[in-house]
């Protein structure tokens, strides 16, 4: 894998909740390499969606406070850009698609006008050229009757088609990075398969790195090269997908894998739940937040916050934040 196209250092987001100020993203650092599909995985409330919003600078200011040492997009540090230059970057060098296809598009504007507006804003094409590129882009995402789609309105399309329009809009300006926040969660499983394939195929041919945010481990296995597991605003494990699924080292990752139901034509493996509850963001326990639910936790886990470090000491790309990790990947557990 070649050089990083997006590298994030010490990103934190705090939010005002009923029980006081809560740090929902806690000093996150990771990088996204060119052409890679990186999964940002975690359950509800772990802070993955807010991380995406923070990267795009979309966190509404009074409600959320974003701090970061750096968010390097190629040679630009987004943290230092003012709102105007940030706007020039959004949708051109870094773009984002969302989960709810029904409400993500403007209901009173036609697909054509929404698509060509983005193209004209970032590629400086005139009205006529923009319409042509829009049709081109729609065909590129597998829309057969692109001309009819251009004239139609969001409520006339199905969920799958709307998500494809979003992808067309996001990829129209050949961005370096595409952030996809639960892109297929609201779709049926057959449509999801099609959209995921569309997404990675486009990413490859445009050389766009994709940050795929999801809670579905099946989607991670199928669509991602590498994945970050998040829990209570922190990365607890980071690994290539193969290592992650065969030999997870963090107890939470292992717990997730044991809890996800898997279709098998042979004997059915019963799912095991992870005991306990996710702690409230404004009342996080000291040390490792997973300690109360972790079978391997001890006093050290409850006091000292584990840092993210390589699994077997040297510069391996499989890293975890745990004092008592599961046995190292050399021998299967």
């Amino acid at each position, binding site marked *: 894998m070649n050089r990083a196209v997006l590298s994030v250092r010490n990103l934190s987001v705090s939010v005002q909740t009923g029980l006081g100020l809560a740090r929902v993203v806690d000093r996150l650092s990771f990088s996204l390499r060119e052409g890679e599909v990186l999964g940002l995985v975690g*359950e*509800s409330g772990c802070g993955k969606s807010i991380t995406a919003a923070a990267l795009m600078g979309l966190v509404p200011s009074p409600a959320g406070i974003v701090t970061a040492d750096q968010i390097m997009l190629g040679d630009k540090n987004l943290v230092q850009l003012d709102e105007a230059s940030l706007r020039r970057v959004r949708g051109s060098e870094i773009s984002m698609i969302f989960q709810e296809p029904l409400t993500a598009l403007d209901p009173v504007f036609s697909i054509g006008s929404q698509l060509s507006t983005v193209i004209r804003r970032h590629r400086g094409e005139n009205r006529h050229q923009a319409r042509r590129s829009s049709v081109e882009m729609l065909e590129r995402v597998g829309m057969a009757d692109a001309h009819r789609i251009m004239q139609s309105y969001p409520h006339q399309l*199905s969920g*799958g*088609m709307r998500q494809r329009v979003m992808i067309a809009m996001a990829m129209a300006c050949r961005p370096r990075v595409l952030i996809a926040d639960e892109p297929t969660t609201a779709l*049926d*499983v*057959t*449509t*999801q*398969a*099609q959209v*995921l*394939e569309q997404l990675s195929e486009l990413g490859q041919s445009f050389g766009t790195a994709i940050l795929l945010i999801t*809670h*579905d*481990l*099946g*989607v*991670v*296995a*199928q*669509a991602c090269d590498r994945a970050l597991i998040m829990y209570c605003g922190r990365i607890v494990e980071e690994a290539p*997908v*193969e290592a992650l*699924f065969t030999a997870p080292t963090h107890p939470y990752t292992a*717990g*997730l*894998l*044991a*809890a*996800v*139901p*898997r*279709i*098998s*034509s*042979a004997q*059915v493996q*019963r*799912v*095991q*739940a*992870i005991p306990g*509850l*996710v702690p409230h963001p404004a009342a996080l326990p000291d040390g490792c937040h997973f300690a109360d639910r972790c079978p391997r936790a001890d006093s050290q886990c409850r006091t000292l916050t584990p840092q993210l470090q390589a699994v077997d000491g040297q510069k391996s790309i499989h890293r975890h934040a745990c004092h008592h990790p599961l046995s190292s990947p050399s021998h299967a557990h």
Partner: protein
Amino acid sequence: MHTNPPLLSVRDLVVKYRVKGGRGGLLTAVNGVSFDIHAGSIFGLVGESGSGKTSLAHSIMQLVQPCAGEVLFHGENLAHMKQASLQKTRRNIQLVFQDPLASLSPRRSIAQTLIEPLDHFRIDVAGKRHARACRALETVGLEPDVLQRFPHELSSGQRQRVALARALLPEPELIIADEAVSSLDVSVQARIIELILDLRQNLGIAFLFIAHDLAVIQQLADRVGVMYLGKMIEIAPAHRLFRQAAHPYTRALLEAVPVPDPAHANPVVLQGEPPSALTPPAGCVFHTRCPQVMEQCRVLEPLDTQINEPGLKNTAHHVWCHLWKE
């Protein structure tokens, strides 16, 4: 082992909705569905959105009046029941919903929510109902102090367990779970799945478990029914369906579910989207997307064919597809 009439049997049920606005017209959500559920068994019903699963559940619960067909409970038709026996049936079939946020009345405490069915069905003496509610909470793994709390103070997993407790209180024979775990996180979902299996084991409660996720269905179901655009296209014992699915749509569904194992590649089998239920295709409703579509599929509606040895009723494998001629 199942000699007496099935606990619940649905015969050629048809449910239609009048659609306001747009071109209007009549939407056939359920188009002639039949299946049985035997006491103490879990029947999994799977299908994508718009397949009519929820309309089916609501018509069984008499929340929606079916246009045709009938629903029999212990062999007795629900529509023709007198008030007294209908009231008894309402006690015997309970409903659990998908959205934990919306299934509990927001301005009433958990105690009020749980005691309401007890008062309504006049179960036990008033004094003992509070204790009964505590026991129900314990069976679903919650401490009694939850009774004083309000729905918005609980996590979605806890709320779904309260909804399950509410369903248990009238001591039903059948619980219809409509996407009961779909909006829960994986770790919480696993806890509810374990709970449902325990309830079936210890209390002998039958479940109609509705979901769009086949992996969850496999965890629970003894028998599985697959619906597409208002029609039942395949019914089979779980072990048969997941090993040798007969209908092309079931096979496509099985392959489309992303397997949490990177080594196992998921080929994309199905293209296009389900057509609108307002204008279902002629002949077999799946023919517009079926990889093995034949001429007759476009014209003739496939009939119910049983493809395994006739033998025992409850292990029959039915499929509605021209590929499987009698």
